[in-house]
């Protein structure tokens, strides 16, 4: 369904992503991991068409997404890393705007918007400007905007950011439910525990290059570790994390 084929992206002469390849089929969830600056957000922007690759292609159903970007985006739900929204708009106005861009019939838009606002506990805040929303509320608005047109693909960039424990659990089950309904999901996150529970595939990126890719069991076997956290630390961490933490404590306590 969604395929990255030999993706390269350079900012000037600085490489951000180098030779990234993967395929996400219906009902699959790809967990996309990497430390800060590894190229995750660049990949997300390439997959959503917000950036064009320097080399390579992003294919949707075998076609380059840039051939008809607007039609591709109508089948895509996207939750960006940061909840940058027009603060003076109310939640409902923002969702109505997105629904209009998506060319959703107004009765369906209204019905789904009402239901989703209610289910995600935002109904009573719908007429309030989003500038007064908490981070979690803004994140939930973005989730509704991404889901309300029943997209075939979901690209989620740190979707749990700011969500409370209950909303995070709801979200975890939601991903599993959508996966069962045949949606293809690209899941970019730092929350390794959730990635382990919801993803069917794993891709780990470091300095723009893929260093591990496959089903979670395959990667476990390859690396020889039992959890995603251990896998991640083994392939990515250049230093002993507990030692770094102890050094920080030493600097604070003992330096005079």
């Amino acid at each position: 369904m969604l395929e990255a084929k030999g993706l390269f992206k350079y900012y000037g002469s600085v490489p951000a992503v180098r030779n990234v390849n993967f395929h996400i089929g219906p009902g699959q969830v790809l967990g996309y991991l990497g430390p800060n600056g590894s190229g995750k957000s660049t990949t997300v922007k390439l997959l959503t068409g917000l950036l064009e690759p320097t080399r390579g292609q992003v294919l949707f159903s075998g076609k380059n997404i840039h051939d008809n970007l607007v039609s591709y985006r109508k089948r895509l739900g996207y939750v960006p890393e940061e909840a940058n929204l027009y603060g003076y708009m109310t939640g409902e106005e923002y969702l109505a705007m997105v629904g209009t861009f998506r060319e959703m019939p107004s009765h369906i838009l209204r019905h789904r918007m009402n239901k989703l606002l209610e289910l995600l506990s935002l109904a009573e805040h719908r007429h309030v400007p989003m500038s007064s929303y908490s981070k979690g509320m803004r994140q939930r608005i973005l989730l509704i905007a991404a889901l309300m047109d029943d997209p075939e693909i979901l690209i989620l960039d740190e979707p749990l950011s700011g969500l409370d424990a209950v909303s995070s659990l709801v979200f975890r089950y939601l991903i599993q439910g959508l996966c069962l309904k045949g949606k293809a999901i690209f899941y970019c996150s730092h929350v390794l525990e959730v990635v382990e529970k919801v993803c069917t595939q794993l891709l780990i990126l470091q300095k723009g290059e893929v260093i591990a890719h496959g089903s979670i069991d395959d990667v476990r076997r390859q690396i020889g570790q039992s959890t995603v956290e251990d896998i991640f630390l083994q392939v990515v961490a250049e230093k002993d994390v507990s030692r770094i933490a102890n050094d920080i404590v030493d600097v604070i306590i003992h330096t005079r």
Partner: protein
Amino acid sequence: MREYLSQKWTAAKRHPWVKLVLLFTLRMFGGGDSDSNEGGAGIGAILVLLAMPGILVSLLLLEKYGSLIRFLRGQGAFDPFVSTIPDEYFFIVLSMGVIGSVILWRWETIFPDKRDFQNLVHLPISLGRIFLANLVAIGLFALLLIVVTNLASSILFPVAVLESEGTIKDFFPFAFGHAVTIFAAGVFTAMAIFAALGTLMAVLPYGMFRVASLVAKFVIAIALLILLVLGGSVPDTLAKEVHPSGLNLGYLPTVWMLALAQTLWGHNTDAHVSEMARRAVNVSGTLFFIVLVTYWAGFRKSFQRIPEFAERSALPLWRRPSSFAPLRVETLLLTNAVRACYRFALRTLFRSGTHVQLMLAVIALSAITVAKLVLDFYAAHTLSEKTSAYDSLLSLPFLVGFLILCGLRLAFEIPVDIRANWTLKFWLDPAKQQARSIARAVMYSICLSWLIPITVVYSVRLWGWIDGLLHTLFFGVCALLLIEVLIVKYRKIPFTCVFPSYKSHSPLVLALYLLGFIFFGTYIPHLESEALISRWDMLWFLPVLSGIYLGLKTYRRQMLDMDKSLIFEESDQL
């Protein structure tokens, strides 16, 4: 010595209180405001711009007061303390206008905001110290504005007046009186505005204060414009009256300041002038007291409650602009994308503080223009004056339309929140060239939807059905063409583009707008009034207007597609 001072300054800067003062002061001048969309014109550039009007006007006056020019004009005996009164009044208005405008511009940065609260309150700094630092910063900000705006003219103007025929005996009292007066005018304006801000803050709940401060800004802008509009006529009126205080002009602070200058020059024998000079001093002193009291009261009341209110929209009154019936042109828009962007643009215009302020300024300017024309009409006595004033009423919709449409066009260039643009970037196809449809729809809704009906009503009432309808039709067509001219190269969604293009060639754009104002607001209505004498002459406009329309169409057709496609970022390269 220099090294010693430098060391002292470096040491002082380390002091937390000095750091706070600098933080607040720099922000008032637009420094250290990285989140701002204003692009951060440097402090130096702002100060140079402030000094320019005083320098330029003083230099122009060198010629006026030159002995040769006065000889050629047949002007004989010259008393600098009497002959310079209109120019002295002008400098007072200039000082008040410039300082008032800058304070209105930087209004939002004067009081500590949520960012200050988040950064300062958890630190070991007392509330009193934050207040005092803010107050000192306000004082420094006002002082710097006043000095920079007036310093050049306080030296150059006395030189211009007295360089050819003056004596040292006259020079010093004249220069002293002039300098003190224009500085006092600046201080008065700054304190009047700060007192208004402080009183609102002290009296109103913080949420309501934000809305009220917007209204106050509008009122102050109108007051400043009235001062500017009256600037030319007040000295003449004063000269004709024996007792100016008996007139309503006695309530104008500018007149008090002029009286202060006359008193300081020592050439005043009129008790009323002395009374007004005293009023200038007394009111300034009272304002100073009000500023101190209300700021402290407002600060105590509001600052600690900032987190409860700061994220709320400052404009809760305009929550649903699209439900306003005349604005529902969206139903006529063809594509969903254009419709969504149109709603987005209207909401931004009605709710974003910056854009509302800009539009309020334009409305204030339009209101003053209309008031001036209508007052001229009623003040006309002779037949020729009446005919001229009657004709000038034809220009009303042209002037208002031009100001609002150009104001909108300027507002489109000011981005509202560039980080949130991803939603629009995500959905809009750059190749579809929808920007002009959106801009056009917004301009129709915000300006023509009410201006054309008003024009019909007043022109039919004034000139009867045929001329009234002809005038409205002619104005409507001209306004539509003006919109097409304004958006001929437009290719952005209003309020979204990162780089405001007017910055790259602003002097040229300003000159074009001024020329356009003269052409559209006065020349076209004059031609229309000539043509209306014999109505058939109006037909001459048909080929001209059609020609302009076709010219614009051809120009668009010849533009490259890449120059028409939608953009969200603009380079500052011309």
